[in-house]
């Protein structure tokens, strides 16, 4: 019986093994070889990564970039989800459409649109200069904050949708009970709504984080050649330097680093849900 039910998952499992697990092992194998032709076992590529400060700083920069973009995404995304959860159905669909729209356009088109907005002669700078907010045009393009802003916008649906689905499930009586007990909107949000939406928030963080650190196109086009993050670094090592074993090694390191952050977030989620487990 149990076997029969599990067998329904077999096609997916096969797909996973062939196209995900197997390549992963190939990658691991390549990262432990001296080069592509002589398959001698070696840790040299891993040692090289951790003894070179340059590699090391790219990794931390990338992980921090993910955290910054995720934080910005959360700060703007949570209110959107909160408003959408309380909005009337008509307004809710409009808000949702506005949030989802970015996923429905091509990454490249979307990113070039941002270049137009963020550039020295871009829309944003024309507004800033026009309003007299700054003498000099702001440097946004090819800076980390430019990348953070664009990533936050592009990955917004991954943050908003999980939070919205959790907020919609919270019993509206709880907010009413809080208000009747004398709590204002802010206390209700801080003490009741936000804690109860933690599972959605963590899900949003994990999705957004994983998407931000691996966003090759956005990072490269908005960041430019001088800002190197892990995806570009891997690409340069593999295609540019033709050093496939080293590229494989840093891929594995990057993957484990991201998994550690995700595991940390999951731990946080489990901790915050103690009341539901007892």
């Amino acid at each position, binding site marked *: 019986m149990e076997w029969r039910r599990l067998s329904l998952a077999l096609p997916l499992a096969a797909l996973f093994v062939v196209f995900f697990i197997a390549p992963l092992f190939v990658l691991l194998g390549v990262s432990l070889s001296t080069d592509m032709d002589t398959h001698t076992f070696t840790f040299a590529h891993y040692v090289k990564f951790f003894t070179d400060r340059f590699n090391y700083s790219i990794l931390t920069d990338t992980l921090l970039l993910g955290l910054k973009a995720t934080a910005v995404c959360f700060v703007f995304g949570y209110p959107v989800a909160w408003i959408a959860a309380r909005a009337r159905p008509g307004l809710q669909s409009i808000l949702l459409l506005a949030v989802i729209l970015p996923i429905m356009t091509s990454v490249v088109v979307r990113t070039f649109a941002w270049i137009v907005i963020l550039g020295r002669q871009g829309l944003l700078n024309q507004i800033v200069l026009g309003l007299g907010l700054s003498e000099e045009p702001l440097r946004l393009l090819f800076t980390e904050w430019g990348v953070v802003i664009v990533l936050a916008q592009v990955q917004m649906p991954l943050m908003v949708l999980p939070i919205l689905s959790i907020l919609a499930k919270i*019993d509206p*009586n*709880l907010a*009413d*009970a*809080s*208000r*009747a*007990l*004398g*709590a*204002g909107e802010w*206390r209700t949000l801080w*003490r*009741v709504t936000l*804690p*109860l939406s933690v599972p959605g928030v963590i899900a949003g963080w994990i999705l957004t984080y994983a998407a931000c650190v691996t966003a090759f196109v956005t990072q490269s086009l908005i960041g430019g050649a001088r800002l190197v993050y892990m995806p570009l670094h891997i690409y340069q090592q593999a295609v540019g330097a033709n050093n496939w074993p080293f590229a494989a090694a840093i891929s594995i390191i990057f993957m484990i680093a991201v998994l550690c952050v995700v595991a940390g977030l999951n731990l946080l989620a489990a901790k915050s849900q103690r*009341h*539901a487990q*007892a």
Partner: protein
Amino acid sequence: MTSRGHRVDIESVSQRFADYVAVSDVSLSIGDGEFVALLGPSGCGKSTLLRIIAGFIHQTQGRVLFDGEAVDHLQASQRGVGIVFQNYALFPHMTVRQNVAYGLQARKWARDAIAPRVEAMLARVHMSAFGERYPRQLSGGQQQRVALARCLATEPKVLLLDEPFAALDKNLRFDMQIEVKRLQRDYGITTVMVTHDQEEALSMADRVAVMSRGRLEQVAPPMDIYDHPASLFVNQFVGSTNLIEGELLASDSWGSKVRLGDGTIMSAASAKGLANGVRVVVVLRPEHVALVDESSGEARAGRIKSVLPLGAQVAYDIETSDGASIKAIAARGVQLRRPGEPVHLTSISSANCHVFAAVHSS
């Protein structure tokens, strides 16, 4: 215990949602310490009225006053109402203690005054041993006790109960009704309860306000609602009834005569405001139907269709000669009748036969 009652006045309150009128020109004065039940079928506007008193909804028209002062400009958080929801709405991520302390923190009680107050409230509802539990580790009755403690801790002016017992099973419901009534008496707190359960309304409230389609049908003490219903709706909604159609022959302030479909003349209570000759319905509760063997002037002939023993009483379903169905309830000690047995029906007292104008069913 000193009386903590506050007067609540509802002055011609109406509530429209788009083109739907949920509450229509309702006026109701609730005395300090009084327990009023809003009774009606679902969709009659009783919950909307409760939410207007709580301040969750701002009414389209009319005023709500606490102790003679309008509170319409006040948000729910500033009105000082306590509300217990059907699902209790305890905060699932907080312990029982944190739940009870929540309102005190929100109302800026001194930190060292909160803990003793929380303990005292938990003791009052016999939940002291459960302070560190989370709501989902409690039974329905325990959750309700915590909800009451949380709500009464802040000393609200008015206690609002929104179908508070609907989620409890029958035995527990009775215990909690007694418990809530005890707390309400102890505190002398003005209470408004919304319910669709007539027994609950009749047994707990000092006065029952029956609502239908957004309007108040009748506001009266429970026994008056039962014995002297002001409208056909109240008569039908509260308690079980037989509807007997007929034509009004004569009426004065002492009583009336109604000719029924099969030609029998029935004596009934006074039919105020109805002209002779109009179609009427006589409403008679099952326990006011008397079963006799002998045919007398006013008795109708019938035949027992089914017999339902209810414990101390027996319910009969009787088919009259003109095909109408009449329910009767008799004490079991009298004479147990069998299905198929012919019987004659009459009313115990004509004062119990209420006459209303017939509603034209379209």
